[in-house]
């Protein structure tokens, strides 16, 4: 069986999606699967080669970040490119997806997950499942203990793919939590927000780049009220 991993992050190699793929590969290896090649769709000049590799593969996993509430444009361009192939080259291909987002709730990614199931069916693919994982922004710079649970979940996802060929419902449900926050969680979140903890990552990056004082700049019109 020929396997292929696709990274749909506009950031390419230095992306959270790539990190997730490395965990997935680790899990696949535990299931006895040889390390599949990873292609970065951000290398848009290599679209033809990416398309050929996809068409030659039996099983593909595509990981991407939620981008303006959908898939990144380069992922759509890739789907359009493979969508022109003969149905004989597409039928029966097993395709799994992982949609990761900075938003902590999975509700943001449900519409695009619905699209992925639909496009899989249109193109004759066997949809091996879509995992949604929120709260992913910054995982590359977080300490190991902070990402341990997420890492373990994606290693398990790799094992499941290697052994069963699809993601289990239980894992899918676990990763997708919370869909939305409940009233108590929202109350806690509002308190946390007042401390500035929720935007800590953004503030630290703004300060690192000497841009914190300009963070509310609105170069093309009137700025939002603070």
């Amino acid at each position, binding site marked *: 069986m020929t396997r292929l991993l696709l990274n749909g992050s506009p950031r390419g190699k230095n992306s959270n999606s790539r990190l997730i793929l490395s965990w997935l590969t680790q899990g696949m290896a535990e299931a006895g699967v040889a390390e599949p090649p990873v292609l970065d769709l951000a290398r848009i000049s290599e679209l033809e080669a990416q398309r050929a590799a996809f068409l030659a593969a039996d099983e593909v996993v595509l990981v991407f970040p939620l981008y303006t509430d959908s898939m990144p444009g380069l992922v759509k361009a890739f789907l*359009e490119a493979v969508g022109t192939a003969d149905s004989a080259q597409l039928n029966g291909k097993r395709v799994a997806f992982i949609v990761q987002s900075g938003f902590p709730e999975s509700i943001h990614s449900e*519409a695009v997950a619905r699209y992925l199931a639909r496009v899989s069916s249109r193109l004759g693919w066997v949809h091996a499942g879509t995992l949604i994982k929120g709260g992913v922004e910054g995982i590359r710079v977080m300490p190991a203990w902070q990402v341990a649970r997420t890492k373990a979940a994606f290693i398990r996802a790799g094992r499941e793919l290697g052994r069963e060929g699809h993601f289990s419902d239980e894992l899918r449900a676990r990763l997708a939590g919370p869909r*939305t926050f409940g009233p108590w969680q929202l109350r806690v979140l509002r308190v946390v927000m007042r401390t500035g903890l929720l935007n800590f990552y953004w503030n630290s990056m703004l300060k690192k*780049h000497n841009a914190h004082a300009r963070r509310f*700049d*609105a170069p093309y019109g009137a700025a*939002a009220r603070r």
Partner: protein
Amino acid sequence: MFCLILNGNPDPSPFDDYLATFAREMERRGHESKVVDLRSLKLEYCTGCWSCWWKTPGVCARKDAMVDLYPDMVRADLVVWASPLVLGAISSLLKKTQDRFIPLAHPYIEIVEGECHHRHRYERNADIGLIVGPTPADTDEDLDIASCLFQRFSKNTRTKLRLFATTSTPIEEVLHDALTA
């Protein structure tokens, strides 16, 4: 009002005529409108560098046709995202342009109606319209998914999805929705 129509049709087709008619009728009713044919512009993909969020707040690092488009997007009362459906979704050309919306948002997260959303960078974001051109292969489900994706975009940008139309929708109906704030 000012209505900006972003035409994500990758190739010339009657879809362009539908948008031209819509724009012309808007003008006839005394409203400013502008159709931007995205296929004729030099537009790069967003690289996720986040410069627009943490290095040069509000300013994209990519210096391409978006430089001229951003002021119009901020000034507009209504931005109509328009595209033929390609594999049941907006074209990659229009999606590539939608990705470039990121500098207009702020990285900070706020809770709005029980969900996390991005803070506004500008005083207001333009309302949103979506016009799609379905192919014979597209079903009601495809239209529903296309609409749902823009409902999420509208919710996250905290604007109203004023109109959702296909090229079969009578122009009068589209105009009615476009002009209903």
